[in-house]
């Protein structure tokens, strides 16, 4: 049997793995027949880890040692608002690591977010190997289109730690479009509305002659299905507080029970116009145990989350406008992500685009399928489909005046590069520092810092005489690379790119061998 590439949709809430077999992409089940695996890792007392459905059950049994929604934290700075928010509500311990990175502390051991994601990827690798009865070494992993450089890099690192050679990082909506249009010979403009557990993306693509061209993409990495659950939880907690003056949100087990109830309630409201939440004995008082019993209608829930849905359409407006289109010019709408199964979202999307979304696509599987198709296209060079993706954010450098000097604008096709000439401002200056940012704000401080490039070892000369050409490249994974050379002699200039945070190459290799050598056992639940 030939070499196989797996496609992995590493989601905030759930993860899936797929392959292409006999020209057909399919999602692989585990031993229990499950295809969609909760992105949850639970650390057992004996040092073993479990991932997926069994781990999710432990959210209530052992909340301190069970990690969920880690994707919300990957590649982020410890001081970012997202991390602060997660810290307030997470049942596990979030601490600060080196370079303002985020670490998760479990049983007095600190894990990087790349490691946590790696544990999930290892499980996907294991499922695929079991299914195929052969070793799997290569993968295509998807990320939200609006992930920045740091988040992409950390995801790629996770793959490496898991013992996978990540052939490509591709954008989730792009993968979905590929799965939708592959081999169909379509000629149309497609909008992919991708609401995941923790992120929202919209991409507009033009499909023609098996070329999948992303025209524009926009997103919000702070908005997802989890926020819908949170609204539900807040509603439950507030009603309970009004009645009993007890804040259930401060009790981690009660919070987890409400989270489960909110999830079920949300789905129930897709089928029914009303649902009842009933959690017996959610709080203990001197007077005995208290139950939580609340009725909620679909209309009321829609009211609770109205602004969240409207927020997604603001992002849609931006993407449609940047594509130079109006909504009526879009031929098909594809829904991606578990939360889009909610009827209130389906209806809202339908009224925004004036057309019903494509039926027959499983929003939880389509991304993994697309990743597998792309993986297959890379190793089979005879494949007819071609992806032309773009960078979701502008790349620029800080200027003395506080403004960002934009070098590569968003929605530029990737891979791409742009060069700029730098010089010195003092006589005999030996080094120049260049700070790189990603984002759309005119002021660089409002954007995401990527890191700093230091051009050093410049030959002594009068100020303004050295001419150093710095090339900023965004590769096919959407990851930034920087190179520099003397503009006249073309001799490579020494640079150090200090990506703010993240793991070094040595650290990644160290972790890879640590988990690959089998010293840290993985157990499969019965």
């Amino acid at each position, binding site marked *: 049997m030939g070499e196989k590439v797996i496609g992995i949709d590493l989601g905030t809430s759930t993860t899936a793995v797929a392959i292409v077999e006999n020209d057909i992409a399919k999602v692989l089940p585990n031993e229990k027949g499950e295809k969609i695996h909760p992105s949850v890792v639970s650390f057992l007392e004996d040092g073993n880890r479990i991932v997926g459905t069994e781990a999710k059950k432990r959210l209530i049994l052992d909340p301190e040692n069970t990690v969920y929604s880690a994707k919300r934290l990957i590649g982020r700075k410890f001081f970012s608002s997202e991390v602060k928010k997660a810290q307030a509500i997470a049942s596990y311990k979030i601490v600060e690591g080196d370079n303002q990175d985020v670490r998760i502390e479990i049983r007095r051991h600190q894990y990087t977010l790349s490691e946590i994601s790696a544990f999930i990827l290892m499980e996907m690798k294991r499922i695929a190997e079991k299914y195929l009865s052969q070793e799997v070494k290569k993968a295509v992993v998807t990320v939200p289109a609006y992930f920045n450089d740091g988040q992409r890099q950390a995801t790629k690192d996770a793959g490496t730690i898991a013992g996978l050679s990540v052939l490509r990082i591709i954008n989730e909506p792009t993968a979905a479009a590929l799965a939708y249009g592959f081999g169909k010979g379509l000629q149309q403009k497609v909008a992919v509305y991708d609401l995941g557990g923790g992120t929202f993306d919209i991409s507009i693509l033009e499909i*023609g002659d098996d070329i999948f061209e992303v025209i524009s993409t926009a997103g919000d990495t702070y908005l997802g299905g989890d926020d819908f659950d949170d609204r539900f939880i807040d509603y439950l907690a507030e009603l309970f507080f009004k009645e009993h003056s007890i804040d259930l949100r401060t009790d981690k087990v009660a919070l987890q029970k409400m989270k489960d109830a909110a999830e079920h309630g949300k789905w129930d409201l897709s089928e029914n116009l009303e649902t009842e939440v009933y959690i017996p004995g959610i709080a203990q008082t001197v007077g005995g145990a208290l139950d939580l019993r609340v009725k909620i209608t679909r209309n009321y829930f829609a009211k609770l989350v109205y602004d969240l849905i409207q927020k997604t359409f603001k992002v849609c407006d931006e993407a449609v406008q940047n594509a*130079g289109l109006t909504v009526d010019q879009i031929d098909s709408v594809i829904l991606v992500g578990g939360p889009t199964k909610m009827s209130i979202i389906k209806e809202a999307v339908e009224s925004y685009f004036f057309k019903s979304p494509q039926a027959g696509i499983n929003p939880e599987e389509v991304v993994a399928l697309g990743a597998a198709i792309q993986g297959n296209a890379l190793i*089979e*060079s005879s494949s007819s489909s071609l992806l032309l993706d773009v960078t979701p954010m502008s790349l620029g450098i800080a200027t003395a005046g506080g403004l960002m000097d934009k070098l590569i604008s968003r929605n530029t*096709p990737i*891979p791409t590069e742009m*060069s*700029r000439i730098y010089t010195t401002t003092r006589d005999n200056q030996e080094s120049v520092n260049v700070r790189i940012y990603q984002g759309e704000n005119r002021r660089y401080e409002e954007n995401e810092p990527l890191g700093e490039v230091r051009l050093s070892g410049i030959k002594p000369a009068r100020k303004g005489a050295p001419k150093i050409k710095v090339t900023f490249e965004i590769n096919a994974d959407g990851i930034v690379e920087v190179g520099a050379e003397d503009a006249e002699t073309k001799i490579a200039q020494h640079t150090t790119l200090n990506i703010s945070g993240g793991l070094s190459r040595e650290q990644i290799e160290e972790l890879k061998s640590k988990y690959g050598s089998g010293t840290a056992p993985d157990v499969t639940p019965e």
Partner: protein
Amino acid sequence: MAIDERKKIEINSIARLIDELDYYQILKVPQNASFEEIKGAYFRESRNYHPDKYYNEPPELSKKVTLIFKRITEAYKILSDQETRVIYNDGINSPNRAKNLRYIHGVQGGPPKEDEGQTPMGKKYFQLGKMAINNRDYKGAKINFQLAAKMEPNNETFKKRIVEVEEIIKGKK
């Protein structure tokens, strides 16, 4: 499926020559090509040189293909935006052609900055006109540039822009 010898020779020679080609030569279209022709050329050349098609080739070949493809996307990006295309055309048709084969953003010695208006209304209409061009609404662009020119009758940029969009509108018919 391995890449045949002829393709390899072609890739090697384009990669060697790439810094001497202008964007039109890279996309293999004439300087007066329409937007649709440029887009078609971008797709055609992407099929030929997208790095994904050479994923299993030795690194020295795939590096060259990546170099070519990056230049193809750069050409497409600059030529599909009317604003940057006009500036680029001026550069490659000037005596300084060799230095202007690649569009370089705002570096000393780059193209002179346009007079984007001195009065608030002139500035506003000029920006609206530029936005209309980006949305390929050339009639709207013309109206806005004309309004801008009404506010500042002596602004040379405004006059030049009106002539340019008129040409595009004519060319489209």
